[in-house]
């Protein structure tokens, strides 16, 4: 459903952030994008919804060619691709409900949104989504009164209210603790399955990527150096992506992490998963 052909991005400073990227994402696939800082992960997903303008190549979302759209058409196309951010990117002084409803801004007119008179179906769907992400009790709170994990759930609800076909997720767990990170990744994973959404998830944590993605793409210096199943990721490939490091320990840690999770009291985990 999403196809990138020969996508290139050169910043005005002369840095080549993406070099000839070819990538194709089928419907419903959750793809993790890993790579060192500065590899171009953020640039890549921002090129898709054109928060960053690609300097070359073409990007197709289903039948729409995105790189040449006028700003009005681009607004329409953006409704189909929702974004989830590293620092949540909520508007702090607005309430949780207003933040979630802002996901509908691409559909409603200015005065309706300014006066907060959203169509009834949108509001009902917002209630349902807040319930689904486990924040039904907090809808009248201001966004800055929430914890990190809760804020990311609001970010997810806002993204889903857009009724997208594609999720662009930029480091969703980078500011969260390990347990909340897993809960958030599990939630994104479940929601993608429920709604048959494709997703590109930028992520630093290789273990989370292995655990929650269908496919892993490794980016280094603006080029794709690995594209395969999570199981194919081994020490040798991690070295190609990130450079020389004693990756054996990394896998040992993963086992530790897994056993640590089993030690965690089951009810707490079940609750986290159910949210």
């Amino acid at each position, binding site marked *: 459903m999403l196809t990138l052909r020969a996508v290139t991005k050169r910043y005005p400073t002369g840095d080549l952030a993406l070099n000839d990227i070819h990538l194709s994402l089928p419907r419903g696939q959750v793809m993790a994008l890993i790579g060192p800082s500065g590899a171009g992960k953020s640039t890549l997903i921002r090129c898709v919804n054109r*928060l960053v303008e690609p300097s070359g190549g073409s990007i197709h979302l289903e039948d729409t060619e995105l790189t040449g759209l006028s700003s009005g058409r681009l*607004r329409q196309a953006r409704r189909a691709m929702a*974004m989830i951010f590293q620092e949540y990117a*909520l*508007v702090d*002084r607005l309430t949780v409900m207003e933040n979630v409803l802002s*996901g509908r801004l*691409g559909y409603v007119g200015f005065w309706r949104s*300014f006066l907060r008179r959203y169509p009834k179906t949108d509001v009902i769907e917002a209630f349902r989504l807040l319930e689904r992400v486990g924040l039904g009790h907090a809808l009248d709170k201001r966004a800055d009164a929430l914890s990190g994990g809760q804020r990311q759930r609001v970010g997810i609800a806002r993204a889903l209210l857009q009724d997208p076909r594609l999720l*662009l997720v930029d480091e969703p767990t980078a500011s969260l603790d390990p347990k909340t990170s897993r809960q958030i990744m599990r939630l994104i994973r479940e929601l993608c399955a429920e709604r048959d959404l494709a997703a590109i998830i930028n992520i630093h944590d290789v273990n989370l990527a292995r655990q929650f993605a269908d496919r892993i793409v490794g980016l280094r210096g603006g080029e794709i150096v690995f594209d395969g199943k999570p199981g194919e990721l081994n020490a040798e490939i991690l070295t190609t992506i990130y450079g020389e490091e004693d990756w054996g320990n990394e896998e040992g840690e993963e086992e530790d992490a897994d056993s640590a999770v089993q030690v965690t009291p089951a009810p707490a985990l079940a609750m986290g998963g159910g949210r």
Partner: protein
Amino acid sequence: MPVSTNEQGEPIWRLRTSRAQWLGYLAWLAGISLFLLCWKLISDNTMWVFVEDAGRQGSDLISRMLPPQWSYAHRLWQPMWDTLNIATLGTLLGIAMAFPVAFLAARNTSPHPLVRSAALVVIVSSRSINSLIWAMLLVTILGPGVLAGIIAIALRSIGFVGKLLYEAIEEIHPTPVEAINATGASRMQVMSYAVLPQVMPAFAGISVYRWDINIRESTVLGLVGAGGIGLQLNAAINSLAWNQVSVIFLMIFVTVLASEWVSARVRRAII
């Protein structure tokens, strides 16, 4: 390099090199010489005969001001009320005009660099002219009265509120703006959802602060005929009725004090 080594081979660190140190001393010497030179110039141009009896003149003035002619106060309520109205309406009008100008002047919300330059010109020209001078110009155009005062205050406020507000707009967090853009929102929707909530506290604070300043400025507008208590002040001074002047001073003092109190309360309530 301020780092060197002594005979024992241990490193020595100084904040400045000796060259920078000497340049510093030289700068001080030049500064002090300039100050003394200016002092000499001013002193040569002062008629010390007049300064010598300043103490006597001052005490004479104060003795004529005391006791204040309290019966005069009842004629001041109306002009005082005018003064408050000039300040408040002028501030409201100024804010209403400054608000769009600030959005056009901020680098991150301006639609085009040319529009931005135009908005900056509006802000600078409003700021560079004192409200008393605006009032003088407007009295010639509109004739004397409260209306000239209100517009003078409004024109002066555009620059102040516009400048502080556009600086606040430039300092907002960019990520919520990105997020709202990513939903497919229009330009105006991005302003109202991502920018406006972030600058609201600053906007309210700036407006109250400007109102506070305008109360003080509107007390003198009457000196050039633009309405308010300044008219009475001018008349009293011209007729050498110093015991009335002292009543006016006291009244202005109390009003300014009250406005400071109100604006402090409002600002605390917002933040």
